[in-house]
């Protein structure tokens, strides 16, 4: 082992990114490219009566105008339910209806806008509850006829239910009998956006001999190849997908959408290169979003707080098409209780079609939503028990030997150590002072916490691979199918390879771009599984290299292969380390002083595939969806102005069991990034849709859709627990997404404590809090009619940093200086 594990190794692409040299999909020259632009539906649900392209085609420079009738092909990763362009019907406002291809972007934009579409508006459904109503309009009339790509989803024809995953365990009657305290509560989270800095885009061209080349901003180049092959009946070998740097994905670039559009655009212009341009509004409304979630949670516990029973129902708002939604529902079912022991469990998780923008994976694969519901419920239970919420979590934390909802027996290896995380959080947050604290007449400080767990839910046979080649200076090139989109996972793989081969980290070069013709297959860069599944492949490639070096080394050094050691870019016999061969003299094959050729160039090769995973039993949910869980405990501290419900997030805390902290700074960066996303999502982000009229998104731009800004973030305090996962390289657990998971719940718990009102809906904008508090009869303090309109002390006004409010007294006038 070379000792690179545990160091703050700089990420491989650091210089390219900080100097602006890193190239993203739309950064390449556009010379020779046509441009394609979309026309999208203004209606949430409507029949397309007619489409007239005449005017659009008459615009100068326009080469083609494509509609759904031209390409009625359907696509989908689990259920093949989504047209490339809406055909006969639109199912969400923002759905692509026509695609104009022209010599430049201006002509394409004008042409797209000039396509004349007549619609007949249909009634739409906007929440799972509306969609499940027996009289609800059907989002998909032909639900029963769609092709399934996987065997474990079960859409219910003539309904809006796309899937159902039940979990049954223990004896509910006994569970409720043993419960002295119960709580029941409904929760609601709206859909929102991934909001990656790089807008989705793709390019396509088709050579005269039929070779399709796609360049795209995607997390899933191999899935792009597969879906284009399936959708258009093209041999997969004729498709080459190229992915340069990706400017943030967060799960939103795992679906295949822009690539299909770019492909048909190129096909309509004789295979000429086409660049598809989507603007921010289209990226928000047309491309998939984060799913909404509704839930009803019922928990029962003994008077000591030990959970006895849980009855849980989840409805995932999947929008108009399923994409990966059913597997998010499966993930919710698998982890439905949160990281707690619950022996008597009845859970139903449903995927529901609505007329929202279709949804897909978003950082943590619905766990932030699941966790919001469970952790708010735990807080309500703690209140009812008059128990410290941290203690309640501690006594119920799942530990080795106990069983998960889907009846996997826990161990330190597969569960990590949640009690250790909770205890560390207790110290880090100074939790004994977690009770709300009055700061001024109108401001209160409070802390809230939440625990989380997450296992990946990949296909049971998801593959990965690594190829390692050498350079004449003895350095290595690491080549995987992993997309670099900011998580530093390629750099972590390089760190593992360097350590395993005993070379210094700077000797490993990483092939950053993915080209499906060159790189070994990798399922998708999703689910934080890179360090595990690609890591296993890299470890096997390293073993392969060591074996080859031992063989050549034994011949060159005249010793047994098992005596050969590889360290510090040298090969030597253990018993005689003074005589060694430098890597550069052996990795290309060895030549001795007599000119004899010994061995051959070294090439490392490793592949891997998930093992031991299973589908869930359709009746009980029994099964194993992922190799292991990552657990953690998080907290948020707020200072709230009770007069207007504005608040300032002053601290955010996270303790996570990462197995092995192989790169402390980069891993802490991932966690902080996740926490920032969680704070942003919970405090302000939501897609809202006009309830009347066309049902369009009312927040389709960054003027109306708010995300957290630089300068609004709190102080982050992190720590880590290291309980190795035995089957993972270096024991490192999945962790890239996980920083987000407990934060929305922790924020809601803090705010609920601060003003004594239960906040069970997201987002937590001051206005939403005011509305909830007013409805709960707690709004009197907030200057409602008849209330003393409390004159604010100057200190309170100036501390309201979440919103505005300098206004600390009348200033003195002045003149021109």
């Amino acid at each position, binding site marked *: 082992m070379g000792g690179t594990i545990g160091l703050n190794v700089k990420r491989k692409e650091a210089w390219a990114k900080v100097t602006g040299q890193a190239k993203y999909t739309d950064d390449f020259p556009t010379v020779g490219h046509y441009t394609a632009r979309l026309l999208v539906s203004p209606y949430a649900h409507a029949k397309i009566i007619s489409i007239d392209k005449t005017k659009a085609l008459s615009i100068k420079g326009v080469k083609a105008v494509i509609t759904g009738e031209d390409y009625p092909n359907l696509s989908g990763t689990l259920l093949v339910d989504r047209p490339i362009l809406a055909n006969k019907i639109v199912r969400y406002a923002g759905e692509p209806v026509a695609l104009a291809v022209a010599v430049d972007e201006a002509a394409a934009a004008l042409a797209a806008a000039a396509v004349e579409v007549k619609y007949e508006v249909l009634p739409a459904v906007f929440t799972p509850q509306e969609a499940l109503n027996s009289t609800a309009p059907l989002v998909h009339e032909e639900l029963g006829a769609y092709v399934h790509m996987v065997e474990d989803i079960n859409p219910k024809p003539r309904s809006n239910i796309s899937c159902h995953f039940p979990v049954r365990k223990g004896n509910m009657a006994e569970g409720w009998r043993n419960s002295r305290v119960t709580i029941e509560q409904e929760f609601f989270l709206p859909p929102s956006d991934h909001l990656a800095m790089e807008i989705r885009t793709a390019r396509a061209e088709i050579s005269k001999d039929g070779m399709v080349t796609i360049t795209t901003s995607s997390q899933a180049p191999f899935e792009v190849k597969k879906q284009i092959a399936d959708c258009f009946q093209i041999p997969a070998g004729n498709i080459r997908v190229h992915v340069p740097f990706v400017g943030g994905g967060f799960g939103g670039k795992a679906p295949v959408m822009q690539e299909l559009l770019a492909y048909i655009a190129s096909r309509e212009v004789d295979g000429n290169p086409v660049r598809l341009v989507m603007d921010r509004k289209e990226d928000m409304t047309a491309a998939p979003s984060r799913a909404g979630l509704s839930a009803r949670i019922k928990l029962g516990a003994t008077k000591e707080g030990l959970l006895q029973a849980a009855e849980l129902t989840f409805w995932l708002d999947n929008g108009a098409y399923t994409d990966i939604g059913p597997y998010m529902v499966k993930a919710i079912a698998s982890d439905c209780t949160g990281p707690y022991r619950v022996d008597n469990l009845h859970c139903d998780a449903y995927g529901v079609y609505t007329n929202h923008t279709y949804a897909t994976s978003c950082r943590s694969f619905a766990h932030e939503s699941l966790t919001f519901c469970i952790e708010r419920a735990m807080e309500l239970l703690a209140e009812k028990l008059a128990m410290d919420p941290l203690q309640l979590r501690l006594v119920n934390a799942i530990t080795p030997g106990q069983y998960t909802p889907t009846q996997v027996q826990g161990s330190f290896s597969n569960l990590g150590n949640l009690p250790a995380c909770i205890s560390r959080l207790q110290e880090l947050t100074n939790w004994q002072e977690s009770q709300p604290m009055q700061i001024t007449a109108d401001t209160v400080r409070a802390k809230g916490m939440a625990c989380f767990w997450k296992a990946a839910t990949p296909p049971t046979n998801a593959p990965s691979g690594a190829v390692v080649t050498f350079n004449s200076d003895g350095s290595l090139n690491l080549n995987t199918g992993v997309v670099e989109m900011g998580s530093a996972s390629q750099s972590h793989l390089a760190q593992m390879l360097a350590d395993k081969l005993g070379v210094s980290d700077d000797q490993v070069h990483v092939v950053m771009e993915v080209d499906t013709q060159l790189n070994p297959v990798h399922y998708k860069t999703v689910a934080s599984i890179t360090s595990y599944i690609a890591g296993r492949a890299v470890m096997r490639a390293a073993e392969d290299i060591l074996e080859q070096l031992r063989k050549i080394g034994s011949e060159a050094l005249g010793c047994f292969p098992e005596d050969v050691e590889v360290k510090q870019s040298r090969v030597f016999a253990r018993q005689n380390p003074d005589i060694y061969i430098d890597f550069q003299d052996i990795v290309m094959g060895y030549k001795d002083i007599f000119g004899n050729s010994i061995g051959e160039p070294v090439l490392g090769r490793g592949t891997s595939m998930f093992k031991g995973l299973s589908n869930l039993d359709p009746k009980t949910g029994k099964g194993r969806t992922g190799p292991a869980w990552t657990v953690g405990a998080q907290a948020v501290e707020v200072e709230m102005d009770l007069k207007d419900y504005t608040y300032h997030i002053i601290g955010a805390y996270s303790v996570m069991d990462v197995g092995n902290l192989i790169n402390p700074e980069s891993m802490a960066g991932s966690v902080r990034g996740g926490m920032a996303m969680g704070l942003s999502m919970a405090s*302000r982000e939501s897609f809202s849709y006009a309830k009347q009229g066309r049902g369009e998104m009312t927040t389709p731009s960054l003027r109306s859709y708010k995300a957290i800004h630089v300068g609004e973030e709190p102080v982050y305090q992190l720590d880590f627990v290291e309980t190795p996962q035995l089957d993972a390289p270096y024991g490192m657990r999945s962790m890239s997404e996980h920083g987000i998971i407990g934060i929305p719940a922790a924020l809601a718990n803090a705010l609920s404590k601060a003003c004594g009102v239960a906040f069970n809906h997201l987002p937590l904008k001051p206005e939403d809090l005011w*509305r909830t508090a007013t409805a709960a009869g707690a709004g009197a303090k907030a*200057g409602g009619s008849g209330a003393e309109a409390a004159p*604010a002390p100057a200190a309170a006004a100036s501390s309201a940093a979440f919103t505005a409010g300098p206004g600390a*007294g*009348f200033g003195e006038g002045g003149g021109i200086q």
Partner: protein
Amino acid sequence: MIPVNFAYCRPCTPEEAVQSYTAYEKAGKKTLYYGGGSEIISMARVGSITPEAVVDLKEIPACCELKEEGSYINMGGALSLRAIADSQCFPLMGKAVGRIADHTNQCRITLGGNLCGTIIYREAVLPLLLTESEVSLQGPEGVRRLPLQKVFDGRMRLLPGEFILKVHVPKKYAQMPYLHVKKAPTEKIDYPAVSLAAIIEKGKLKIAFAGICSYPFRSKEMEAALNDTAMDITQRLNKAVELLPEKPADDVHCSRGYRELLFKNMLGQVLAELSAGSKAGAKS
């Protein structure tokens, strides 16, 4: 990307600007005067306006003037909000424009653009409404100078072809005690839920608002009520709500109810400052 082509010109004198504007209009082109462009560009990008010609005013020296002249401070219509704030020539004005958008945009948005734009808040007008300010308008018939209140009624009422050459603020107002408070629905830099500017002149409160209604306003009736010490603070606040010129705005940014809550809270704060000030001699 703006998909339509349009003519662009950048004249050096007010007369040339008007001539260009008139010539374009005469040729049948939809023409706009162009300040910082933040609104024109963003609206043209989404296709909600399709100008065929724009006349950029930023090269006209008079429009970029910032100086004292007699008993007035003159501010050119093409001055950036940031330039006005940084000059500290009129602290209340600096506070008001220094809270419009972010620093990057303040360096682009002009005084004239903010006053004449279609975005409803026009917060730069608040200090001007309190200070008997005047405005010089350049039009095809030449320049006319008149009290701002005569041409501002929620928005600028300009004649065809007119643009704001300069704003004139009486210097004496720059010396008076003032207060500016802005609250946005979720974050510091955003459109206001409620924004207010106030000064105290001879012990009396003068106050103007943006955000609470669909246009900025100053109401003499409301000021009279707020200065009426026969009423207690709660009564004055309730009266102020009654005297709003229209129901509080209700839109995707902020609901009517929450705006009203913020309005009352913020106004309560102003009245508290006022009474504290009258006891302690109008000093913060």
